[in-house]
């Protein structure tokens, strides 16, 4: 079942001024329930504009967007859509504002007008989930946390609303490798426990390839490719030309192939590459020379 349906969507910024810019150009696709949906594209390719439509932060100019069966052009649906789709923007730590972490996490649920006990339950649960135990972090000021902790606190603020769909824009940007691993682990866990449908924007092809069921490749406001990671990264030249590059494993595979190693299949993760190489070694039939 499709939870997000985008049909012939176009969007133009600053219409009829010298700053006019076409951000989206006739985009159509669907995201299914339970799917891990990756979006990649160079800076300015329209990714952020696209996802802001999932939350009616931009109203569709032409074309239509349906989220959880609700039409995003109708004003009465706005709040329901926003509560159905959790949005974690780039550098979400900059949206923290309350004097304690717990209060900040409670901001979303409070806007949903939930009863107090339910809010408390959700705050505790989501803080525990992101690895900032309520007892330790709940009463601290969000401004004295470290960068990675701040980001996790901000994510807790979004998942406390228990959205059906979680949209993450460059969620690991600017974190150290350890913080990055933690965030990615967290996302995997979230998909299992909280929100089954996840949309992830990333410039890191390794993350995208390892996590996504399907990948949408955007360039200049248009859809270039929409397929499984394997099918997408088969287009080695196209992905390089778009300035996006390949997962490290695929890059190594390309490099090995150019030196005469023959592979049966495209690998997008190291595990796949390793098992392929195992197979070649065991069979001894991979080498050309």
């Amino acid at each position, binding site marked *: 079942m499709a939870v997000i349906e985008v049909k012939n969507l176009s969007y133009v910024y*600053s219409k009829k*001024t*010298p700053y006019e810019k076409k951000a989206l150009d006739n985009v159509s696709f669907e995201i299914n329930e339970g799917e891990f949906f990756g979006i990649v594209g160079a800076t300015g390719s329209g990714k952020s504009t696209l996802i*802001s439509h999932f*939350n009616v*932060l931009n109203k569709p100019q032409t074309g239509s967007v349906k989220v959880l069966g609700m039409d995003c052009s109708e004003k009465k649906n706005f*709040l329901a859509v*926003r*509560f159905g*789709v*959790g*949005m974690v*923007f780039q550098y*979400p730590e*900059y*949206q*923290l*504002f309350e004097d304690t972490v717990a209060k900040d996490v409670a*901001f*979303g649920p409070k*806007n*949903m007008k939930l009863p107090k006990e339910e809010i408390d339950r959700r705050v505790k649960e989501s803080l525990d989930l992101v690895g900032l135990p309520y007892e330790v972090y709940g009463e601290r000021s969000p*401004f004295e946390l470290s960068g990675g902790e701040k980001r996790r606190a901000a994510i807790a*603020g*979004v998942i406390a*609303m228990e959205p059906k769909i979680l949209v993450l824009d460059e969620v690991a940007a600017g974190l150290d490798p350890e913080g990055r691993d933690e965030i990615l682990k967290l996302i995997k866990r979230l998909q299992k426990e909280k929100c089954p449908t996840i949309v992830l924007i990333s410039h890191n092809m390794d993350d995208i390839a390892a996590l996504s069921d399907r990948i949408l490749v955007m360039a200049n406001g248009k859809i270039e490719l929409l397929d499984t990671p394997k099918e997408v990264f088969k287009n080695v030249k196209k992905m390089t030309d778009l300035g996006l590059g390949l997962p490290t494993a695929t890059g190594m595979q390309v490099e090995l192939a150019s030196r005469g190693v023959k592979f049966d299949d495209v690998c997008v993760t190291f595990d796949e590459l390793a098992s392929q190489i195992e197979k070649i070694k065991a069979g001894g039939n991979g080498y050309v020379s």
Partner: protein
Amino acid sequence: MFRDISFGQYYPASSPVHRLDPRIKLILTVLYIVTIFFIETYFSYLVTFVFLIVVILLSRVPMLSVLKSVKGVIFLVLFASVLNLFFVKTGEVIYEKQITSVWHFMITWDGVHNSIKLTLRLILLIAGASIITLTTTPMRLTDGVESLLKPLKLVKFPVHDVAIIMSIALRFIPTLLEETNKIINAQKARGASFDTGGIFKRAKAMLPILIPLFVSAFRRADELAFALDSRCYNATEKRTKMKKLKMHFSDLVATLITAGYATVIFLDRYYFMGLDHMFFPEVF
């Protein structure tokens, strides 16, 4: 939400007005503003209006951009003119009514003329003043201000510091607007609403925007200070400019045209004592 703010937004185009020296533009704008306050007659308003239209056409800025900057203050203008209408008590009476023993309500012809003139004056003033920011990049504008304030160096006024502060402030307006937009979006995504409820509720709803905005403004200021320090920026040294301001023939022409316009206005007021009697004899 803040995309529509046009006052102070540079409109890129290639026109004689864009190319004028910013110092000349600043001086001429001041002259224009001063002149407007000397206007007494409808005839002069007509002249000002024509002058303004010609300047806008020459600048190739669409009329809509100029009107947008007027739109921002239209409420203030209307408020002021309505007050004028009710509180001027001289001239021929059109309508009067004793409401209470102390409040004598009356509208007079003087009041009507005053409020029309006030409205015209403010609109022409704002439209005229917005042309300079629409046609001059913030960098050139600050260069112009710095150059004009140079004489103040004699009394140890830190002209260059003021100029750099001004250019930083102008430079960060769009950045902070963008930042505000991002924060608004993030809070909206968490279900915040900014346009419902009474005035207190609305003011309180601004907190989730203002606090992160201030935090990031301070962070940016810190980073900028570091960046300036690390490049050994020193405002007190004798600094040279990459793009030196130069006067051209067109600056002279612009000055003459504006001076001519101002002369007409002053003549109308002090020499002819108001030309309205001549042009609209049946009204006055």
